């Protein structure tokens, strides 16, 4: 007989779909995101199969446009952006800060419903025939020429934006108001700092996206001149507005991943994160400076040279706080008692892949090189190293780390390590050849290409096959553990955070007694034993 917890408190559908418990809402998000991840992944699979040969043999040009557009839209807005904040964040934030729930539980549930509504509208676009603009909806194509379901797709993204705003708002208020007694700002785990920084971006940037998408619909449906020069608009205005949101959105995607990595590196090195304050403030610095770099997406768009120079410089500046984090994680490993459990394998993979993604970002911040690399596979490889190699790897790492807490079950360590290694290998084989392809000039968004590019494309498609299998594996062994896994103890990793000082899975009210925090996070004794934050 297991103790009462949030999973066995009630079993009815109503108790799930009308819950205001942050833990159950996290599970609702988790299940939804699996669905969207595999839909977006199916589109990517079709793309990689098509690109295995130089000629078109699977889909038409028009269908190919719709495939990569849906892949982008679903993966960005319906997987990457909500992934860590809405699943792991939703579940862990209140536990980590010693609270009973988020500040606005009903707003939290509304956020999930808005997300599902936005996702349903977007999936309707797929069923109705798709959209061919690319995930960036660039004008004038999206407003004047595209014969696909642009207005419906932007409506789906528009609605999901409100879900993002509500989540960001909820986290900001929760972190300000609901911290346990003694949990000062500098005692907060770095996962919280990174989600706080993410929330600020969510709240400040997403309204601009919403406004921009409305303007597309206004021009497309009502003919008001906003982006079309023939009726008094400016097409670059769209790019400015879109990237004012969408570049910070990259940090919405990666900052939570960085937050997870702090927890993993510290726990599996049995050491406090090196330079805690630097890492904490680096999150806020990334959030702030990340707003000043959007023009690096527009170097060849006809933007002024002065603007390009300023955006280029700021893009180099934003690399500094990211580099601080990487150096500090590496320093944390130094003289640690390193354990290669599955979450740590993901964390180490993250550091390598994120570093490659970040450094190639500096190539693209260079004005001259960017002219050569714009719209080539170099860019595709770069941002996949950040978003997939970085963010998705961190998501999987966090998922494995907190899985025993979320489900009360232990998974197969053997299969988890196998999946981690396969993901690392498959990912590199998929995307590293794309750097070469891009440097040699292969443009993105075409499904036919000169035969001399085939060898790299075959390598990439082969890697994608391994990656697809590796991403499917957790579905089986985590699914198995859900029903047949051994019961997890409260603190299987022997970690000091507050979330580990309550049973697995936690009771509905999280803690039997209000935790009182007495020390900073990540404290381990000289013999590497965890010193709980509330002891």
């Amino acid at each position, binding site marked *: 007989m297991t103790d009462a917890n949030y999973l066995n408190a009630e079993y009815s559908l109503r108790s799930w779909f009308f819950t205001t418990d942050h833990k159950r809402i996290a599970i609702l998000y988790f299940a939804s995101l699996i669905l969207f991840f595999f839909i977006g992944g199916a589109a990517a699979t079709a793309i990689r199969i098509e690109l295995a040969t130089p000629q078109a043999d699977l889909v038409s040009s028009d269908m190919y446009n719709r495939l990569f557009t849906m892949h982008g839209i679903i993966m960005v807005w319906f997987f990457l952006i909500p992934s860590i904040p809405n699943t792991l964040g939703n579940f862990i934030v209140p536990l980590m800060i010693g609270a009973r729930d988020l500040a606005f539980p009903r707003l939290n549930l509304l956020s999930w419903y808005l997300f599902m509504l936005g996702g349903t509208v977007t999936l309707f676009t797929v069923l109705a025939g798709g959209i061919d603009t690319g995930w960036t909806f660039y004008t004038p194509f999206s407003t004047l020429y595209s014969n696909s379901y642009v207005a419906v797709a932007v409506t789906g993204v528009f609605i999901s934006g409100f879900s993002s705003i509500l989540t960001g708002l909820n986290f*900001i208020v929760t972190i*300000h108001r609901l911290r346990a007694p003694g949990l000062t700002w500098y005692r907060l785990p770095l996962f919280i700092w990174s989600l706080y920084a993410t929330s*600020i971006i969510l*709240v*400040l*940037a997403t309204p*601009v996206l919403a406004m921009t998408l409305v303007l597309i619909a206004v021009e497309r449906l009502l003919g008001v001149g906003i982006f079309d020069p023939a009726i008094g608009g*400016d097409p*670059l*205005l769209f790019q*400015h*507005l879109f990237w*004012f949101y969408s570049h910070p959105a990259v940090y919405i995607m990666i900052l939570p991943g960085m937050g997870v990595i702090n927890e993993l590196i510290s726990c599996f090195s049995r050491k406090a994160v090196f330079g805690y304050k630097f890492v904490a403030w680096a999150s806020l610095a990334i959030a702030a400076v990340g*707003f*000043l770099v*959007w*023009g690096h997406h*527009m170097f060849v768009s*006809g*933007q*002024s*040279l*002065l*603007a390009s120079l*300023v*955006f280029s410089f700021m893009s180099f500046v934003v690399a500094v706080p990211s580099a601080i984090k990487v150096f500090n994680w590496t320093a944390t490993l130094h003289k640690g008692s390193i354990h290669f459990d599955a979450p740590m394998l993901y964390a180490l993979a993250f550091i390598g892949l994120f570093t490659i993604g970040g450094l190639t970002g500096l190539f693209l911040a260079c004005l001259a090189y960017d002219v050569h690399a714009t719209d080539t596979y170099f860019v595709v490889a770069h941002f996949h190293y950040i978003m997939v190699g970085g963010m998705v790897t961190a998501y999987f790492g966090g998922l494995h780390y907190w899985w025993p807490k979320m489900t009360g079950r232990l998974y197969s360590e053997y299969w988890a390590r196998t999946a981690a290694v396969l993901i690392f290998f498959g990912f590199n084989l998929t995307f590293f050849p794309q750097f070469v392809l891009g440097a040699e000039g292969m443009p993105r968004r075409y499904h036919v290409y000169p035969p001399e590019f085939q060898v790299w494309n075959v390598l990439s498609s082969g890697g994608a096959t391994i990656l697809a299998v590796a991403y499917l594996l957790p579905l089986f062994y985590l699914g198995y553990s859900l029903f047949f896994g051994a019961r997890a103890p409260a603190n299987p990793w022997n970690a000091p955070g507050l979330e580990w000082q309550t049973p697995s899975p936690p009771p509905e009210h999280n803690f039997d007694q209000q935790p009182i925090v007495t020390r900073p996070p990540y404290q381990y004794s000289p013999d590497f034993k965890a010193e709980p934050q509330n002891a």
Partner: protein
Amino acid sequence: MTNWPPPLHLVGAWLALVALLVLTVSLAHLPLGAFNAAIAMSIGAVKAAIVAAIFMELRHRDATTLIFAGAGLFWLGILLWLGMMDFLTRT
């Protein structure tokens, strides 16, 4: 029966917004050249201030909330500043 008082200040703010809207539309028809835009923007700023102070109740809020509201304004400034840098310096 509830003792909820009628929100007179909200009604007043709404009437002020409607009046300012009428003013904006009326002045847009006067041939004032570049001043048309300046006047419209000024009226827009007053409307935003009314919404922030009264509908969003920022006039009763603590410093933290004001900082976040101010951040929204500041970030809008960044959008306009760096965006205009392109438009004003294109060759």
